[in-house]
């Protein structure tokens, strides 16, 4: 039996798996994607659109399958499975990269001095008791000794002084100081992030505050003493008509107002006079 002709016929029925492309097609097999960067034939697209697109798709799909079949294969219970490689494609980022946070004063200082940040354990051991306690935050403060039941009174201080109160006070000061710095850092950071000079921002805030206080007297600051070099307070600027305008317009405006005014109460009917006149007329 001559199958060769049958084979040939069968083979003719299908297209060749070989596809020629001017620019090689790129693949990301992990995503089972092929990217064809060849130019589209405009003529064919306009004349036989459907056909052309079908052809194009088939070719590219053929190429993709060719690649897939080249992949190493594992045989498992579920059958033959191809092992996909790592994705080579990178998705573009939707948002811009975050900017670096402006450095705090300490960070700047540390950078200049070359001080490295050292990671410290959160929990520290109290050698006397052998207990762990957090270095800061809730449950911390063991090392502050404020919770100790006994405190040594140094020999050179007033014996009646409350050492606990002193410690609490010191701690509070430290906290406040740090808070202040933190606030300052935030302010400066927000100014620099807007591209302003933090010093100028601060100055302006101060002057605004002064302006408010200046205006906050009964006379709106009109009779206050002025310091030399003090910036002039800007109040609300009222807008008036220009001094020199078209005289006709101005006259007309005045006449309009006059008509309103006089119409209202300028020429009030003199009742007495009217009565008298009508009486005379009757006589």
């Amino acid at each position, binding site marked *: 039996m001559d199958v060769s002709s049958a084979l040939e016929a069968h083979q003719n029925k299908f297209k060749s798996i070989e596809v020629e492309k001017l620019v090689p097609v790129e693949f990301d097999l992990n995503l089972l994607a092929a990217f064809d960067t060849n130019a589209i034939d405009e003529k064919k697209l306009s004349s036989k659109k459907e056909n052309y697109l079908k052809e194009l798709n088939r070719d590219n799909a053929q190429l993709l399958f060719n690649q897939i079949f080249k992949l190493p294969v594992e045989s498992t219970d579920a059958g033959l499975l191809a092992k996909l490689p790592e994705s080579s494609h990178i998705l573009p980022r939707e948002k811009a990269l975050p900017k670096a946070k402006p450095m705090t004063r300490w960070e700047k200082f540390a950078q200049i001095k070359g001080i490295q940040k050292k990671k410290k354990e959160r929990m520290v051991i109290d050698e006397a008791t052998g207990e762990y306690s957090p270095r800061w935050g809730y449950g911390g403060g063991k090392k502050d000794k404020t919770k100790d039941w006994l405190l040594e009174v140094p020999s050179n201080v007033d014996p009646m002084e409350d050492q606990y109160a002193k410690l609490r006070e010191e701690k509070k000061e430290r906290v406040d100081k740090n808070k202040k710095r933190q606030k300052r850092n935030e302010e400066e950071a927000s100014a620099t992030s807007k591209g302003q000079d933090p010093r100028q921002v601060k100055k302006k805030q101060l002057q605004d505050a002064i302006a408010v206080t200046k205006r906050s007297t009964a006379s709106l600051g009109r009779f206050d003493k002025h310091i030399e070099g003090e910036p002039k307070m800007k109040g609300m600027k009222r807008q008036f*008509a220009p*001094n020199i305008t078209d005289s006709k317009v101005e006259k007309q*405006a005045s*006449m309009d107002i*006059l008509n309103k005014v006089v119409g209202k109460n*300028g020429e009030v009917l003199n009742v007495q006079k009217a009565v008298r006149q009508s009486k005379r007329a009757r006589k």
Partner: protein
Amino acid sequence: MRPLTEEETKTLFEKLAKYIGSNIKHLIDRPDETYCFRLHRDRVYYVSESIMRKAVSIGRDQLGSLGVCFGKMTKTGKFRLHITALDYLAQYAKHKMWVKPNGEMPFLYGNHVVKAHLGRVTEDTPEHQGVIILNMSDVPLGFGVTARSTTDSRKLQPTDIVAFHQADIGEYLREEDTLF
């Protein structure tokens, strides 16, 4: 120096209308020259446009006055007529009151006009009407507001007030410091 705002013009006209009524239009619409109202340091000036245009050259601090001062805008937004407006008020007055020679000086010292000093008065003057006060030789002395209408004032006692004093030319001496 600046033009009056609409609100200010309205208060001004309302006050003027008490004395000269609709004759205000003769102030605004003059045949000889264009005149305008200008505000400078709370005072309202009535001035010809040509003078105003020249006076623009004078600095705000240096400008004392221009044209005729009609009065001042108070801080509370009211308008107070000054005696300096008397010329125009007398010219266009609707109602006039003449005082006898013996009443001249009391009025010029800032007193009200009493019945005994009343020489003549425009007929049909209603109550609380702005009047120009003149002496018997028709020299304007000031202005005031009638206390009674003409008919009512006939029945009054000689010492009763017929017109309340508003301004008099004696203020040129008495109020020189505050008036200008």
